[in-house]
């Protein structure tokens, strides 16, 4: 495989609120799609995404197959101070995992 795209995360402080944007690199196969040879591609999709702020779990997102390829999420956290650590962990249905973290600017 060529260079694997990386999960990206950005956190910004705006009007006293933290805006978090996450872009995960994942094919999100539903198990219904076919490849060029007409064979079914096995299901492979992110099921569980969790977000931490400074060791506090703040959000859990459960995904089904209808989440788009290379999932994008954007949400707000109340409050926040520069230097806060925002961390995302994901797990897909095959047990693959990923972590992305950033510090609030």
């Amino acid at each position: 495989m060529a260079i694997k795209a990386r999960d990206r995360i950005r956190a910004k402080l705006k009007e006293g609120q933290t805006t978090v944007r996450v872009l995960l690199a994942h094919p999100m196969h539903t198990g219904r799609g076919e490849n060029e040879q007409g064979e079914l591609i096995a299901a492979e999709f992110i099921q569980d995404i969790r977000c931490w702020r400074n060791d506090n779990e703040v959000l859990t997102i459960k995904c089904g197959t209808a989440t788009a390829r290379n999932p994008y999420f954007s949400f707000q956290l109340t409050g926040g101070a520069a230097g806060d650590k925002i961390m995302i962990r994901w797990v897909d249905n095959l047990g693959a995992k990923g972590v992305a973290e950033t510090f609030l600017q």
Partner: protein
Amino acid sequence: MTHQPDNNRRKLIKGAISASTLAIVAASGLLLPKRVLAHWPSDAFTAATVEDALLALVGDAEVVDDKLVSFKVGAPPSYAVNGASVPVEVRSSLQNIERIAILVDKNPNPLAMSLEMTPDIALPFKSMIKVAEDSEVIAVIRADGKLYRTSRKIEVDIGGCA
């Protein structure tokens, strides 16, 4: 020297206790990843109808169609050229939101995503979903034991459930 056997017994008991605590810690540590996986509500995500998915996910609750939830789908709204990535945006003035679910009526498995909220999270929430064909897209918010539901009709040019 009369205390010697007593001391030994104490040591033995102490040893046994710490060993058992270690075992418990190890077991819980090992169990953690499995538990995280098992947490995925497969009933809800494999349900074939919106009603079944909601029942499995949030249980029976009074459904209120409400204007307190503002919900945007598609760019431009209500129309998406490519069904493989349709932007959605959920806003609401509701307080104490416990859960948000986004469903696509005509998809093989309607439930697209489900969010478990904590007081630290504020809306708007934005994401991308797949839409197989022209369909209703539904946002359901559970707050204070009530379900608030809004939906938008969306048209897609290219179905996106591959």
